[in-house]
């Protein structure tokens, strides 16, 4: 089979029903023009939904033009699925309007809360993992999926504290949410690594405990290093640095199970020129290509398990 020409492959990606199993990039206004001028080989772009909840102007102009060329992931950061209060229906309507307008291949949100009353805290805040929280999160995700009439992906969080009230592990909690609501998992490998370091967990074991058969997208990003009061390493999910080697290693481990999955390079702070990010996109694409030719271990035929 001859390889598709670049423009054919890009156009087909734009019209596809799902995100392609390739590397994608967070779309930043600083890169709007260079993307349209150079049409780089990128599997998809991802935007934060709330940034595009504006009436008009350049954001919509450029996103519309870029969407014609590329697949799109719509990633919410303000729905506050973990909030004690009911979901904001006006916000759901605004999401539905964006989905109608841009027909993204994927919609995702976070296992977190970010609002209290009408105050928006602009951060992804942690939840205790209890039966009560589980019920609330599942109810909210049911409501999201029925309001938007589509399956959503839920992202595992980066956290800095734990709750004494938690009775479930984070992986059990996420597994239950996925099982009960039918949502997919947005596996954020950086969040996973950050949380495991911050809470003294074994990252590989944590990864294996997640519902990896339901991963619809993977996020890769960079972190910052601090120390906690005991002198132990405390990682901050900064999205302001290149992807760390430990995160690449875990990503490879994940791909061994999931096979190739749409993978986002996320950089929201200290944004470098597009070329620098394209190099990371290329690195992820290299691992995805290799995973393409390697049957996923989860689905490996019996004889492959036999000793040589």
């Amino acid at each position, binding site marked *: 089979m001859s390889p598709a020409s670049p423009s054919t492959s890009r156009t087909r990606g734009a019209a596809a029903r799902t995100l392609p199993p390739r590397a994608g990039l967070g779309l930043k206004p600083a890169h709007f023009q260079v993307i349209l001028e150079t049409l780089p080989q990128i599997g998809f772009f991802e935007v934060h939904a*709330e940034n595009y909840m504006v*009436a008009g102007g350049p954001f919509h102009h450029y996103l519309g033009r870029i969407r014609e060329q590329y697949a799109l992931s719509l990633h919410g950061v303000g729905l506050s699925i973990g909030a004690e209060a009911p979901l904001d229906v006006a916000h759901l309507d605004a999401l539905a309007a964006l989905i109608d307008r841009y027909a993204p291949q994927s919609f995702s949100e976070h296992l977190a809360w970010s609002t209290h009353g009408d105050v928006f805290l602009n*951060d992804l805040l942690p939840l205790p993992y209890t039966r009560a929280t589980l019920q609330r999160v599942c109810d909210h995700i049911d409501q999201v999926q029925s309001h938007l009439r589509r399956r959503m992906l839920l992202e595992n969080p980066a956290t800095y504290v734990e709750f004494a009230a938690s009775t479930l592990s984070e992986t059990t909690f996420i597994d239950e949410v996925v099982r009960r609501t039918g949502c997919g998992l947005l596996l954020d490998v950086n969040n996973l690594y950050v949380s495991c370091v911050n809470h003294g967990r074994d990252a590989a074991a944590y990864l294996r405990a997640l519902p990896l058969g339901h991963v619809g997208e993977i996020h890769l990003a960079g972190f910052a290093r601090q120390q906690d009061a005991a002198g132990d390493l405390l990682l901050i999910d900064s999205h302001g640095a290149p992807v760390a080697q430990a995160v690449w290693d875990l990503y490879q481990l994940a791909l061994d199970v999931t096979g190739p999955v749409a993978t986002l390079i996320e950089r929201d702070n200290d944004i470098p020129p597009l070329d620098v990010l394209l190099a990371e996109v290329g690195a992820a694409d290299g691992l995805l290509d290799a995973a393409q030719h390697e049957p996923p271990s989860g689905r490996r035929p019996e004889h492959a398990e036999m000793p040589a």
Partner: protein
Amino acid sequence: MSAQARFTDALLDPALPCPEGLMTWNGSDLALRFAVYRNNVVVSLVDALADTFPVTRELVGDEFFRAMAQVFVRTYPPRSRVLAGFGRDFPDFVETFPPAAPLPYLADVARLEMLRVQAYHAADVPPLVPAAIAGMLAEPRQLPALRIGCHPSAAILRSSHAVFSLWAAHQGRVCLSAVNPALPETVLVVRVGLDVQTIQLRPAVGLFIAHMMRGTNLATAVDAASADDSGFDLGEALAMLLRWQLITALHTGDHAHEHPY
């Protein structure tokens, strides 16, 4: 009080202790870890204000700006999940922030910067084509009752300070040392296509456009502008409306003859 209410209060008020019920795997002091959340909330919102108000920040310096913005963020955290409009109340806050009192022009510079952000994200409405406007202007009988629909990005700022010159100095357009901040200036902000324009107007022209934007008829707007400045030039004012593509609709007083442009 719910757990998330206590968590929220502690995020916004550093004098409060960490919320109860938190723990760490190694038994380390929670304050430092909870500070990550406090920092994320406040710093991300201060950064958002710094992006919206770059000239305000330059005028007072980064340290002063961030200290002022922190007080604002903690006192008036955002009430919307869409941060594009966050900071609308910041100019009023700056005006009453005692440490900023020695810079009486600062709040209006912030107002100008907020108008620019609002113009950037305002709705896309095509301007009327010049031929449609020329057709209306060719019917002098209709002119006194003429009202316009104005582009949603347009705004007039009438300041008793040199708000345009201060802003322009920070774009490298004029030399800051040549600016007398005590001179009143009037500014039009409008987005033409994708570009936000910032234009200095004669005060009476600004007053005229402000009246027209509010839906006042032409005769009343001319009277107001002429009362403000006997030298008001209607031709110049109309030229501004046309040049910056402010007119998106024309209405005459006679609804039977409404121009459906």
